[in-house]
């Protein structure tokens, strides 16, 4: 098809072409089926602001969810499931449903609800890629959406407390990972030697969980024990994504991560300091303001002072 296909999705990190599961599913499927997809990363633009990412744009259409995008690609004759039998196609649907029911709540929880992970990794990462002032609103909204989804679908009685819901969803996720590992066995892909839709979905859900470095890692630890699933992710990354990660070498990526961490720590320290100062001011006795002889800094000195404080 001559029409150019453009995909807007969240960017990559930690060795992955994208950190967002759904974007990764679409990118993997495009690689498997040979669709010529031009990937434009939503970084510091307003396009991801509606939260609908990934979005596929062609000349006439805009398609928005992964399932619909995959259907659209299939209609354009980019079909990765060509060699599957009818039963295998049915199995694909079933396993995708299993992933969405059992694994997705725990993945959402690990990324967006678990406070250590959210505040140290997810929020800074997404906030740094969304323009101000949306960076203050959108990550919070995505986090609330994730929590909402978990509570509405899994938080029904007799589980009344969030702790019990969390325990249940992690248990289900571990069981799901075990089932996937059993199903994969020692073969390279789920259905024989060539990758299909199911491989794209499994890769999309597992790869961020496998690669992103979190403080609270119970699900990641469990995944790392299932060596065939780890090997599956690594194989796909090496064979299909090695050349198009965007040219950032692993060393460069780590440097960027280290800088981001330092900046985050500095900002946190500054905000703590400001809070302490604020507390001190509030607690100090209320005296009428008197004119203190202060040294007025010249504008140039003030500017150099503030610059020194912000640089890492």
């Amino acid at each position, binding site marked *: 098809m001559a029409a150019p296909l453009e995909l807007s999705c969240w960017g990559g990190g930690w060795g992955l072409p994208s950190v967002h599961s759904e974007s990764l599913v679409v990118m993997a499927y495009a690689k498997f089926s040979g669709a010529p997809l031009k990937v434009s990363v939503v970084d510091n633009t307003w396009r991801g602001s509606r939260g609908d990412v990934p979005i596929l744009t062609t000349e006439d259409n805009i398609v928005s*969810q992964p399932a619909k995008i995959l259907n659209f690609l299939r209609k354009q004759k980019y079909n990765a499931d060509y060699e599957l039998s009818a039963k295998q196609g049915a199995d694909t649907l079933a396993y995708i*449903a*299993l992933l969405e029911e059992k694994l997705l709540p725990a993945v959402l929880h690990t990324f967006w609800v678990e406070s250590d992970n959210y505040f140290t990794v997810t929020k800074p990462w997404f906030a740094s890629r969304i323009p101000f002032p949306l960076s203050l609103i959108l990550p919070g909204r995505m986090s609330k959406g994730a929590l909402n989804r978990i509570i509405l679908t899994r938080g029904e009685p007799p589980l009344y407390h969030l702790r019990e819901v969390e325990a249940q969803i992690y248990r289900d996720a571990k069981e799901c990972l075990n089932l996937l590992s059993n199903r994969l066995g020692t073969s390279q892909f789920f259905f024989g030697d060539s990758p299909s839709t199911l491989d794209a979905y499994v890769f999309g859900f597992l790869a961020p969980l496998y690669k992103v470095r979190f403080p609270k890692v119970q699900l990641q630890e469990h995944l790392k024990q299932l060596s065939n699933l780890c090997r599956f992710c690594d194989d796909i990354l090496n064979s299909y994504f090695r050349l198009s990660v965007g040219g950032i070498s692993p060393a460069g990526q780590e440097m960027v991560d280290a800088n981001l961490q330092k900046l985050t720590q500095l900002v946190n320290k500054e905000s703590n300091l400001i809070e302490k100062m604020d507390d001190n001011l509030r607690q100090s006795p209320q005296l009428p303001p008197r004119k203190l002889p202060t040294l007025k800094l010249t504008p140039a000195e003030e500017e150099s002072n503030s610059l020194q404080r912000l640089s890492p």
Partner: protein
Amino acid sequence: MSLVAEAFVSQIAAAEPWPENATLYQQLKGEQILLSDNAASLAVQAFLQMCNLPIKVVCRANAEYMSPSGKVPFIHVGNQVVSELGPIVQFVKAKGHSLSDGLDEVQKAEMKAYMELVNNMLLTAELYLQWCDEATVGEITHARYGSPYPWPLNHILAYQKQWEVKRKMKAIGWGNKTLDQVLEDVDQCCQALSQRLGTQPYFFNKQSDGDPDRNKTGRQILTPERPAPPRVSQAISLQMPHTPWSAACGTDEVLAIRK
């Protein structure tokens, strides 16, 4: 339930054999029960029949509120109350009856996957049809759901339930789906199930835990016993071509549920 509580319950369950007076509670069959609840109830009945465990069905208007998890059906066995198919299967397994012992790991994984498919697609579609499609809601659901209660409670409860279901649909991304998209998903799901079944009498050659779940929805859609919502008749016409699966639902009905 926490792990400790579950282990405790299975120990108690394992201690006693299945009693003769086990009862299953559901809503009133003629006037109140809705499509999705009826399907769940049939699934449990089919499962217990397949395990050869006697069960008596009792209809109560407030069954939904009696249930420990808020969902019907639930069974009352000895001095324990267990609701929903998943926990009931585990409970029955703790008592020593299981249909899935002969399956290997890969088959168990497939069975769980197909059960999730049925729950994810078909059950959600049923809920959508019942509560988010205005025509059905107006004609059938509101009237049936609130029928045992006096005015204005019948309207209030029906609207409350509708609001809850709509919230859930929005959270999982079905809020913006049109009816045609939902029917397309149902069609895809039925095709998948039909292809998995092929020409076998059961999904995994002999009866397994997953069969009742799938047969319940098939039978539900095919049986004209209850007034089917108008859109569901449309869905029925989509499913008719999938004969192996419809035939399997038919045979199970003859074997198990006719009493």
